[in-house]
């Protein structure tokens, strides 16, 4: 039986990818960011997943305004890194797991979550930066990846509650897949940041750390937080944090998770970087 053993949460700031790709990870500016992931790289070597179910958002890359799916599940066998305007990131092709993805699609849709299924999609920094942070710069990614792209670009994003519930449905789906697979679920984006207007540059470390506390301790209650609280307190782009609730919803919520790692740093470009690793007991 497949099982979800752990969840990983991380910001996916594009400048982090650029710093790595341009060989600047040792610069004074970037060193503390990457140092926050040293533990994580060792942890994932010790706990290698067969599949990562990766929750992220597309940033006007695969989806223009022609099509705005709320939850888009990548069911393809591979996903090419996209050219976001600066040329494609020099990272390996992302290989999917079409069998598990199809199984999840069937199960989750029958659980009343109307997914969009995507058989051709390029993936942007939202997906590849988390892979780089956790795996470094390998020749090939060491696991399969199932992307779930969530709309957080056009308001409204799905509610926190809906995200938490779809996470629960994903867990149920994975656990009913017959192959013996170690699956991790990653929630990405955030933390506080605003990229637009006179309020650009907003950072709220008190709110961010409270979010991390509540994500660990009481995610079902955190999931009730309205969108406007994210916008007001964590910036217009801080709304990405609803995606973390999908990963958290997919954890075993009968018992508290083990906090393997927690990291918080300001800034990476315009953004507060947050990172957690939670294991099921």
């Amino acid at each position, binding site marked *: 039986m497949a099982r979800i053993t752990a969840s990983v949460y991380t910001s996916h700031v*594009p*400048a982090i990818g*650029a710093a790595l790709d341009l060989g600047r990870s040792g610069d004074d*500016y970037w060193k503390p960011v990457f140092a926050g992931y040293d533990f994580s790289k060792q942890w994932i070597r010790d706990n290698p997943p067969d599949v990562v179910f990766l929750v992220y958002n597309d*940033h*006007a*890359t695969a989806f*223009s*305004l*022609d099509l*705005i799916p709320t939850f888009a599940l990548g069911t393809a066998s591979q996903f090419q890194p*996209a*050219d*976001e*305007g*600066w040329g494609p990131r020099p990272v390996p092709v992302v290989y999917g797991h079409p069998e598990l993805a199809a199984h999840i699609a069937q199960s989750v849709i029958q659980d009343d979550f109307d997914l969009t299924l995507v058989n051709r999609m390029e993936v942007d920094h939202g997906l590849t930066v988390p892979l780089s942070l956790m795996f470094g710069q390998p020749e090939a990614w060491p696991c399969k990846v199932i992307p779930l792209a969530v709309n957080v*670009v*056009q*308001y*409204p994003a799905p509610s926190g509650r809906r995200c938490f519930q779809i996470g629960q449905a994903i867990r149920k789906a994975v656990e009913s897949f017959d192959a013996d697979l170690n699956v991790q679920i990653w929630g990405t984006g955030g933390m*506080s940041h*605003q*990229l*637009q*207007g*006179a*309020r*650009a*540059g*907003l*950072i*709220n*470390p008190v*709110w961010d750390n409270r979010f991390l506390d509540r994500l660990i301790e009481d995610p079902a209650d955190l999931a009730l937080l*309205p*969108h*406007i609280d994210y*916008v*007001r*307190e964590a910036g*217009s*782009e801080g709304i990405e944090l609803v995606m973390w609730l999908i990963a958290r919803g997919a954890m075993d919520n009968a018992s508290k998770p083990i906090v393997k790692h927690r990291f918080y740093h*300001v*800034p990476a*470009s*315009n953004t*507060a970087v947050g990172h957690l690793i939670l294991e099921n007991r």
Partner: protein
Amino acid sequence: MALEKPYLDVPGTIIFDAEQSRKGYWLNQFCMSLMKAENRTRFKADERAYLDEWAMSEEQKQAVLARDLNWCMRTGGNIYFLAKIGATDGKSFQQMAGSMTGLSEHAYRDMMIAGGRSPEGNRYLGEDGDAQPQHQPQGQASPKGPH
């Protein structure tokens, strides 16, 4: 009945909702076209001619030509789409975000290194934070001088 929009009283912030998206459809689709290298080349060769190929409003075209991202956003632009213009110009996301505040590139970067912009006074219109309308533009261009 009108939809509830509780985000209209956040200072210095335009939420890209369905209404903004409708207004900005062609502006954002133009931006999207800049993901292709050949289109970036054509745009750079004659910006006005390239813009005229799109069903954008004259105001949207002027906002793009002026590289005024706040103006672009008011006419329905979304920052992730507008970022394609920045990429075409060789600008980083930090340079683009900073350009919307009135701060110089250096001052904006320093603000971020010092921990970013505080939410204090910047949650609701009518407070006294640095992102409030009465304090725009920030930085050297402000009548109050640099912060």
